C-alpha cells in the first residue's frame, strides 16, 4: 500500500470540495494544517464532479480545482466527471 494525497488552500471555495472528497472516499484522512488542508488516502483518491455540484449547488468544472490546489501525489487520470489519483 502507498499513500496518495492532495492538498488545497484553506478557504471558502475548498471547504465544500473537501466535504465532497470525504463523502466519496471513506478511507481518506483529512489533516488541517496552517493555511492548508492535506488529504491522504491509501492507494487511490477519487474526486467526483457530481458530488461537488451537490455540495455547492451549481455546475462545476473539475479544472477549477487548479486554482486552489497546492500539491498532490500519485498518477493522475482526469476526465469531465472524475479526477483520480492512484498508485495502481
Amino acid at each position, binding site marked *: 500500500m*502507498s499513500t496518495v*494525497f492532495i492538498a488545497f*488552500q484553506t478557504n471558502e471555495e475548498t471547504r465544500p470540495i473537501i466535504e465532497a472528497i470525504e463523502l466519496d472516499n471513506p478511507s481518506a484522512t483529512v489533516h488541517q494544517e496552517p493555511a*492548508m488542508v492535506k488529504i491522504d488516502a491509501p492507494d487511490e483518491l477519487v474526486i467526483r464532479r457530481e458530488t461537488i455540484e451537490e455540495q455547492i449547488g451549481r455546475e462545476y468544472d473539475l479544472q477549477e480545482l487548479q486554482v*486552489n*490546489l497546492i*500539491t498532490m501525489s500519485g498518477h*493522475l487520470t482526469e476526465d469531465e466527471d472524475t479526477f483520480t489519483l492512484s498508485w495502481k
Partner: protein
Amino acid sequence: MDTPVNKKKLSLKEKYSYLTRDLAWEPSYQSKEDLFPYATYEGIKVHDWEKWEDPFRLTMDAYWKYQAEKERKFYAIIDAFAQNNGHLKITDARYLSALKIFLQAISPGEYAAHKGFARAGREFPGVGPQVACQMQAIDEIRHAQTQIHAMSNYNKFYSGFHAFADQRDRIWYTSVARSFFDDAMSAGPFEFMIAIGFSFEYVLTNLLFVPFMSGAAYNGDMSTVTFGFSAQSDEARHMTLGLECIKFMLEQDPANVPIVQKWIDKWFWRGFRVLGLVSTMMDYMLPKRVMSWREAWNIYGEENGGALFNDLARYGIRPPKGWADAGEAVDHMSHQFMLALYQWNFGTAFHTWIPSDEDMEWLSKKYPDTFDKYYRPRWEHIKKMDEAGTPFNNFGLAKLCQTCQLPTVFTEPGDPSTLCHRETEYKGETYQFCSDHCCDIFNEEPEKYIQAWLPMPALFQDPLNGDLEAWMKWVSLENGSDNGDYQGSHDQTSFQKWRAMTTSN
C-alpha cells in the same frame, strides 16, 4: 424568440486533442532532424510521440482563464498586505532571514526554470510536451515576478532585500541553487526534464513549498503564503508533467532505463544539496515552526518518494543512489549548515543568531538522537564566546565542492564527528568535493564541471585580490546592516520600534 441551437460540447479529451495535437504539423521543406537538432544526442530513444499523454489535459484557453484568476487573487492580497502594514504582523523579524535567502537563492531559480522550459518546449519534437513546456515556462516567470513583487514590500523597511540579483550572481551561498539550474540548463532537453520536472518538481518542491509556506502562514506572513500557494497551485501540474515525462521515456524503449537511472541518481543528490538551505530555514529561521525538517522529510521525502520509487520499480528503476545517505543526513544537515552560516555571517546578506534556550529545547525534542549529542555543545560554546565579548567568526574559508558548490561542512556518513571531504585529480588539477555522490557526478562529466564558476576563487582573483571590503562592495553587501548577528541589527531595532507603535500612541 430565437430557437435555441443545440451546440455539441466537446469532451475534455477532444478539446485537448484539437487545441494541442492539432497544432502540430509535418515539416515539408526542412527535415525533422534539422528542426529538432537536440532531440537525439542524449541517447534517449523515442518511437512514438503520440504516446505522450498530458494527464491534466489543460488547453491554452483554460490555462489563461485560471492563471488570470490566480493573479487577481494574488495582487488583491499583496495590496491589502501593504496597505495594512502586514510586515508588522509577522512573529519576529528573525523570520525575514528565511525570506532573504528565498529571494536571493530560490526566486532567481524560478527565472532560470522559465528559460529552461522555454528552450525545452522548442527542442522537443512532440507537440504534447511542447505545449506543456510552454505553459510551464510562463508559470515559472510568473513565479519569479510574483515573488519579487511580494517581497519588494519588505525591501521598503528591512535590509538584505535590495540586491538579490547581484547576490544571485556573486555571493557564495546562493551559488548552490544557481549552479543547480545552470547545470540543468546546459544539459539536453531530456536531462533537463529529469532535473527540473522530475527530481526538483516531483521529488523535492513539496519540501520547499508546502511545509515552509504553511510555516509562513504560521508566522503571520500573509504575502509569502500568497505567493507560495499561488506558485504551488501550478506545481501540481508541473509534478504531473515531470512524472509523465519519466514514464514516457521508460516506456518508449528499454535502452532508456539506464540513462534515466543515471540522471535520477545525479539530480536527486544535486537537489538534496540545494535543500540544505531549506532545512536551515525551517529548523532555525522560523520563530514559530510547523514541523521540523526531519518531519517534513518523513512525509514528503521518505513516504512520498518511497511510494514513487515503488511504483517506478516495474520499469526497473531503483531509488536514487544517494537515498540512504540523504535519509541519514536529514538529522544533521540543518544544524551543520546553520553553524556554517553563523560562523561566516560577516559574508551573508541576512542575519543569523545563536538559538535561544527555548529553540534548543525544541531542536533537542525534534532531533533526539543528534542535537544534544553533537550540536548543543557547539552552540553552548559559541554562546559562551559571545557572552565573553569574543563572538565566533571564522575568517578562514572552507573548500568548496566543485559539483554542488557548498562549502565542505557536512560529515561522513556513519560518523557525524568527522568532516566529509573527497578530492580527485583531473588533467593535473585537484578538485574538492563534499561527498562521494558529488565526486561521482564530477567523474561522469569532468569536462562540464571543470568549467564551473565558483564564488570563493572570485575573492582571490584580480581585482579583489582577497580584499574583504572590496568583495562586500562587489556582492552589494552593506556591511553592518545586511550581515552579522540578528542581535543589535537594524532589522531587530526597527521591527521592535515599529511594532510598539502599532499598539500605543
